[in-house]
């Protein structure tokens, strides 16, 4: 099966629908596509101050929520809720990674999640972000299944809307993890930005997630679709997920920072918006 690339201009949903319909006829496949236009959550990070506790939990420390230390990935940072690492200013969320000795770690940064605050099954999840850069920086905008405490990871499911390696400033990675296709075996795709990079301006990272499909887009480009056919295991994306935004330093996925890495590094988030089914 060849996965189509679509161009999204003013109305992504409309174009996607038309294109899929067209291909569906040609390929004799039936694809259900739902439109998500009902805004169910937004944080525009307006004003200046700390993060809105009604929307977000702030994760602290070196993590053991998934497995072991370093948030399961041998990450090097210590997450804090200090304003040096996380603040809202000038209409933006600033998550800043710093090189400093703190609680026996050599780096600090921040991570927030919406567990118990925004948990949603299906929808359109998007955020407008300018990414940091440099060897060893690993920012992410991702979703985790809200049943993780009952079934564990990866059975709870994970949807990585945006992952990125600071040393590959033109490459976006979008993927899903589930039982049989997790860790290094996740299902996903790299998207390379042509004649631009992710650390010099804002880009919109999003998914449209419905029953039996997750469409990945950046700005006006739909670059991947993942369906149950694509994964080597059970499809575990039919229950509510919550949002995580973090900026990790080091770890298996990205490698450690080196002498060329410039600190501090900030991930700037202009907004996070979530849409659900209309009506």
């Amino acid at each position, binding site marked *: *099966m*060849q*996965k189509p690339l679509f161009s999204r201009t003013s109305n992504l949903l409309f174009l996607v629908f038309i294109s899929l319909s067209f291909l569906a006829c040609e390929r004799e496949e039936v694809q259900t596509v739902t439109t998500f236009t009902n805004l169910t959550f937004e944080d525009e990070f307006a004003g200046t101050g700390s993060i809105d506790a009604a929307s977000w939990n702030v994760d602290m420390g070196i993590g053991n929520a998934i497995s072991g230390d370093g948030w399961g990935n041998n990450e090097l940072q210590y997450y804090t809720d200090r304003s040096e690492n996380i603040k809202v200013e000038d209409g933006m969320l600033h998550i800043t990674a710093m090189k400093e000795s703190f609680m026996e770690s050599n780096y600090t940064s921040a991570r927030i999640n919406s567990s118990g605050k925004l948990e949603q099954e299906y929808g359109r999840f998007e955020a407008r972000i300018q990414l940091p*850069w*440099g*060897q060893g920086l690993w920012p992410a905008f991702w979703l985790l299944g809200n049943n993780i405490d009952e079934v564990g990871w990866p059975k709870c499911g994970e949807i990585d809307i945006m992952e990125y*390696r*600071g*040393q*590959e*400033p*033109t490459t976006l990675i979008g993927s899903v993890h589930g039982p*049989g*296709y*997790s*860790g*290094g*075996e996740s299902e996903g*795709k790299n998207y390379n930005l*042509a*004649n*631009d*990079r992710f*650390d*010099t301006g804002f880009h919109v990272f999003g998914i449209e997630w419905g029953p039996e499909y997750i469409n990945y887009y950046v700005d006006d480009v739909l670059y*991947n679709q993942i369906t149950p056919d694509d994964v*080597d295991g059970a499809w575990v994306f039919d229950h509510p997920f919550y949002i995580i935004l973090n900026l990790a330093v080091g770890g*298996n996925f990205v490698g450690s920072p080196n002498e*060329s890495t*410039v600190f501090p590094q900030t991930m700037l988030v202009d907004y996070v918006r979530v849409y659900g089914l209309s009506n």
Partner: protein
Amino acid sequence: MKKNIFLNSNLLFLFALVLLLTNCKRDKSEDAKPASFPKNGVVFIDGFSAGLEYLPYADSYFEAFTVDEVTKQKGTAAMRFDVPNVGNPKGAYAGAIFPDNGGRDLSDFDALTFWAKSSVGATINDIGFGQDFGENKYEVSLSGLQLSTNWKRYVIAIPDASKLSREKGLFWYAEGPENGSGYTFWIDELEFEKLGTIAQPRPSILEGEAVTVNTFIGVTSTISSLQQTFNLGNGQDQTLNVAPAYFEFTSSNPAVATVDALGVVTAVATGSAVITAELNGVKAAGSLTLNVTGSFDLAPIPTEDPTSVISIFSDVYTNQPVDYFNGYWAPFQTTLGQDDININGDNIISYTELNFVGIQFAVDQPTINASSMTHFHIDIQAREVIENGDFLTIRIVDAGSDDEIGTGDDTSAEITLNETNLIHEEWYSGDISFASLGLTNRSNLAQIIFVSDATISSVFIDNIYFYNDGSTGGPMGPTVAAPTPTQADVDVISVFSDAYTNIAGSDLNPDWGQATMVTEMLIDGNNTLRYAGLDFQGLQLGSPQDLSGMEFLHIDYWTANSSALNTFLISGNTTEQAKALDVPTSAWSSIDIPLGDFSPVDLADVIQLKFDGNGDIYVDNIFFYKTPGGGTGPTMPAPDPTRDEADVISVYSGVYMDVMGSDFNPDWGQATVVTEEDISGNSTLLYTGLNYQGLQLGSPQDVSGMEFLHLDYWTANSTALNAFLISGNTTEIPKPLGVPTAGWTSIDIPLGDFSPVDLADIIQFKFDGNGDIYLDNIYFYKEPGGGTSPTSPAPTPTQDQNDVISVYSDAYMNIMGSDLNPNWGQATVVTEEQISGNNTLVYTGLNYQGLQLGSAQNVSGMEFLHIDYWTANSTALNAFLISGNTTEVPKALGVPTSGWASVDIPLGDFSPVDLADIIQFKFDGNGDIYLDNIYFYKAPGSVEPELPLGFEDGVNPLLAFDGGAYANVVDNPQTGGNPSSKVVEFVKIVGSAWYSGVVFDESLRATPLIDLADGTVFTVKIWSPNAGITVRMQLEGGAAPAYEVFQTVNTANQWVTLTYDFTSQVNSSDTYPRFAIFPDFDTSNQNPVAVEAIYFIDDIIQQ
């Protein structure tokens, strides 16, 4: 420079103004547009872009650059750069600029991009753009660019493109040999582009450091280490050295220190100021903080008459050149600093951490003759409080008459200063007489040494010079007349002398634009020419002079302060030749220059003399002369030859057995009178009134085993002389000989110079020209041990057998069944000789010779043809490569050789021969040729890997990942079921990632490895120590998604072939740059590897 900038920035305004004045009715705004330049980013794609020029550096190897139509990354051609070997007489390095002098508008681009590769791994010293052989205003340099033997794409970022709206300098480079050896690199698809991925600018000055200095009003310094760093699209940082014009410099306090557009900082008042810089709005790391402590009292300005001074360091006088102001003498010297302070234009030497230090003028520069000087002057300021016991000793060293320091005849004298002389921050001015110093020898002054033994650590020094105070020695000129010449009137043509009748009507001071002041003065009653402040000076003879009967030019000269002086003779055809004169002199110096030294000046038509150099020169007795009664014949015999008789075939010599029966005066109708003269008992041939003259050998001579023709000749009056060698087939070739001579001249002419004369059948000599010629010692010779056959074998080649297709060599497996002597009708005799046990191919009496390969060879994967050859007597030799379509191309080989010669001919040189179907070699030429080690080869690993991958070349194109897993190509340890000799060993070590595997290194190829149009099924041979493992194969890195297939190894410890069928998944029009193979891919156990496992992988084949 500043004027240009002004015009530039006001161009629009000026243009508008002109239009307004000339046509008031016109709407100025529509026509008044600034000049625009082409927005063309192309430099070289398949040829020079419009307007592009190639200008090599003056001292570089000019032939370095060519356009290569064989090796290229894309299209039809690439730029090829041949970096010379160390010591190449044509230039020691390669370097050039490629400007478009019409200018380009590059402001829409952000980088210069290109593809490049090199014949060996290499690092380009400097490469960039912005050099135009003018201001180089926006020069950018990338240092240490590493190239590999595979094509790779490179990017050089533009520091601030908005500056480049009219840039001329599109590309430049400078590169020397690698480890002493020359090599070749190629650049293709060179163009400026808008990549959009050049980001994170981080400019810096002063290496990003915050530098603080204490200084004085009037001191200037320049901001250094100007750099711009970007993060490129591949995530790598790139740091460039950039010109100051990219920066905006700012002073925090211009009332204290100013900074100009080029980063030159000037302290103007007491206080502090911080100099910072921005590049394109980004603040540069690094700063310079100036603490200006006040004004500085300069040393007293010297007042000695410049004509009475020899200066070492002063802004008042012209300084003599020195080797250095600080020799940093290891290992005990601690002293830092030299002539690096400038206060309001006054240069000052600053020494810090002083223990001892020396100024030297002896090795790279001449020593100084201060014998006519009386005093030594120096100004010294201590920069610290002088305490009791502190001292500074100044020692002046004379190198002695051998002019070399460190030899036994050196002398020195010294003076020691202490707290009675030196006061903190005040100048001490010393005027020390040589008499008080006791420095008797001062004709070869070489060093001034300062010693404090660290008692005084910081001093400023100014105005170091020697002078004559007028008390002795008189003014800076000779006090006596030049010696009166003694040549007889009849032997002399005089230009300027009281002793002779001078040529009438000469102009002693023609206006050629010189600065020299010319005076004619009486010294001791003798007319003398004085050239004061010489730069250059002409002397126009009253009439052209025929000097061919003269032997010498005589000049008397005197100078106390010149460090360079040349005299020139100039003939009517505007040929001029210089002769250096030794300066300075300690008294009148007389020189007699053989006129032969001025060759190729036409001595029959001399019209002018010229001097150049420096200093004040007194000149007298300028005349030409010949020796009494002579000028027409040598007074000494030619030097006796010393070569061994066995290396010589002699024609005319009193030393060797000459060829019997030669006729030294055959009647060929010549006018020349031939006689034999006895000079000190040595018989010498004399041709009087030569027009032409033959010499018939007693018998034809085979001199093909010889290397040179030797002749001794002498002539005072010839202006043209050629020697000819003539063979039985009436071929003759002239060799011009330099005339007239200054005494006997010996010449050794390589016999190759007489090509195509048949060296095996020499029957005659001939000379033509004019004048009276003495000849002696006419013989052929070869170097000892040289001769007709090599005494040692050709050097053993070192290429790996895997990189070689060999035709003839003991070092390799040769192609089977070749015919070394096919009958193509040739006269050449072919034999095989063993030299020290090494088989060598010998072509005797070559006219032409073929070599039929045992089978047609595809050498398109090779890069060079290697041949070792030796010949003492060949004057022409070509090697041909011949392909099955009967195309053949010759390659000329340099002959004769001195010892074994090795050539490595790029196979591209044989284009258009079909390298995929080589069937024969051919050689043609002449002489006797020894050949060995004829083979084709490639540089190891320099061919792009491609599918199928069998690893037989020993090169590993696979990278291992993750967590310490590694992969190497090894000798196949498991040949059962796979006879392959090389395989990949992949080791999943303990602790490596569970998903570890190998991935093809896509950087090894310019194009994607996998084209699915060639097949969508892949087979892989694998040997696993465990059964039941899953081996995943994935196609990666393409525009389309990655695809994977899983297969299982069912049998342990034996080679199995796994088939990966991607047909149902992929689109056959897609390409992928790489694949990955994941042995033991077990998603159910995603933990680091607990037990090491070794897998072998081989024969990755696209079906």
